[in-house]
């Protein structure tokens, strides 16, 4: 386990470092002077110079880079000039909303994926299996913005039971918050639910064909008990690993789902910062998102190794 960590960690850190240089470099290549954007079109040369000094734009590039990384590591991100407020506060608020959305989607993915997987593996009628198969194919193929528009049309426009977008924090008003969370979380969860369902179906079918399950059947144990106590525990490890990978996908997909449902998370913050050219915030956010993604991948590698000893010695 530790050996694997020692092997994986350097390459993850290397990727992070390269990504930080890339993000930093790309935003320095942007045509136009960020100071001019901030100061507005009417600013005179002395105002511009003051803004440049405040942003540290006159320092040599390596110094600017180190200042930025140092700030990130100590949690001192500085103020956001265009959007207003402290960058750290903006990111904390967005992170809360995105986490809420991602966890909601994870719950949906497990519930729907689990149901589909168990149904697909245990159903006797061919058409039930066919229906499960078609459902997962459709959920995998259709882009989230198509399912998002369909969900809004069905639940917000036609039935009028759920709001079409926006957010009420779950912790301040749970009953109202759930209503706002349902549609975006469902939309984000669909592709992951389909992947989980297919994996579970496959894994469960193999577990049900094993000898100990036949022995249990011969001993007269009820089919439901066999499923939950004997087959499912065997089928779960690969699915748990997949869940880790899917969490990474959910974080990436959240950016889009937030845009569809006007959910004020990190994705919306990134979009807003980009449109309003608040480059320091864009820079912090991009690196943060990449860091979270790399971390989730590293964690799922470790979980996989924990569950499957063969990986450790590869």
């Amino acid at each position: 386990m530790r050996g694997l960590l020692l092997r994986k960690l350097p390459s993850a850190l290397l990727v992070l470092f390269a990504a930080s240089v890339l993000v930093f470099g790309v935003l320095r290549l942007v045509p136009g002077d960020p100071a001019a954007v901030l100061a507005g079109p009417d600013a005179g040369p002395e105002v511009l110079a003051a803004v440049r000094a405040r942003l540290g734009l006159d320092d040599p590039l390596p110094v600017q880079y180190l200042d930025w990384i140092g700030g990130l590591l100590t949690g001192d991100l500085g103020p956001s000039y265009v959007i207003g407020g402290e960058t750290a506060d903006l990111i904390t608020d967005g992170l809360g909303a995105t986490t809420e959305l991602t966890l909601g989607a994870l719950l949906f993915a497990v519930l729907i994926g689990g149901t589909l997987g168990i149904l697909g593996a245990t159903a006797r009628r061919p058409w039930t299996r066919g229906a499960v198969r078609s459902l997962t194919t459709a959920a995998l193929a259709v882009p989230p913005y198509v399912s998002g528009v369909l969900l809004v049309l069905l639940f917000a426009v036609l039935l009028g039971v759920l709001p079409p977008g926006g957010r009420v924090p779950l912790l301040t008003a749970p009953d109202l918050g759930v209503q706002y969370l349902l549609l975006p979380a469902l939309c984000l969860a669909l592709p992951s639910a389909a992947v989980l369902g297919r994996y579970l179906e496959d894994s469960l079918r193999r577990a049900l064909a094993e000898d100990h399950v036949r022995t249990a059947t011969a001993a007269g144990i009820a089919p439901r008990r066999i499923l939950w106590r004997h087959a499912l525990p065997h089928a779960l490890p690969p699915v748990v690993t997949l869940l880790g990978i899917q969490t990474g996908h959910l974080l990436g997909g959240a950016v889009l789902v937030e845009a569809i449902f006007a959910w004020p998370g990190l994705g919306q913050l990134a979009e807003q910062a980009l449109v309003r050219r608040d480059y320091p915030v864009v820079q912090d956010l991009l690196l943060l998102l990449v860091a979270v993604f790399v971390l989730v991948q590293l964690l799922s590698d470790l979980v996989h190794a924990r569950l499957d000893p063969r990986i450790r010695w590869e």
Partner: protein
Amino acid sequence: MTSTLPAPAATGEKAARRPRHPYLTALATARGRTGLALVGLVVLAGLLAPLLAGHPPTDQSGLTLAPVGTPGHPLGTDDLGRDLLSRLLYGIRADLGIIAAAVPLGAALGCLLALAAAAHPAADTAVQRLFDLILAFPGLILALAVTAALGPGRLPVVLVIALAEIPVFGRLLRTGILAQRGREYVTAARVGGSSGRRILTRHVLPNAADPLVVQIAVSLTVAVFLEGAMSFLGVGVRPPEPTLGAVLSQSMPHLAQAPHFAAGPLVTVTALVLGLSLVAEALNREIRR
């Protein structure tokens, strides 16, 4: 594939002389045909856009949010009074242009890098790290990063899709080459005196190519997805030019009054993506047999 039943005489003899290419067999299955038909319909609509559309896609008429079946506007009009049928058709055209440029570009670059990686271990390490770096930016974050530098537009969309596809194709081909190079027939060819280049082009590459063909179909669906996602994030092709994603994202605020606004792109994107998935699945099944 050995059959003990005598095949029907006419077609059987032909088939015996020239076995059909597995890709064609795959596309002739029910799955493959349905997929091809769906994709074909959408492509045809895009190609014939100038003939089928009654209005230019950016012309504004006085009628805003006109319903389906309005004279002169069969699919109605949008919030600015533009004809929805023509925006849909030209949107398909724009999407097809983008994905037809971006996916082959990404595939070609990825394959070139994989070939470079196959040439030397040092190059292999460098290429692998490059793929890791690109993959550290999940698709949409990559889109945000690229548009942060280039601004929104058609070129950044193409670039984002191509960039996202580079490691996908690169890794596939690299694994394929490595797997084939260890096979005995390659050793046999080398012992027989074939040059390295001939072994690569005549023996290794043709056998490593199958997964790439399937991946092209999959990547086309990813490209449709990315184009639409970038429009929703406000970093896609610049308005007023229509794309499937752009029309759909413009319809969002008007869904309550005018659900038909979204209908055209919804049906089209679904048909295109489902069709491509069916083709990919048909190819995959045939190749894995």
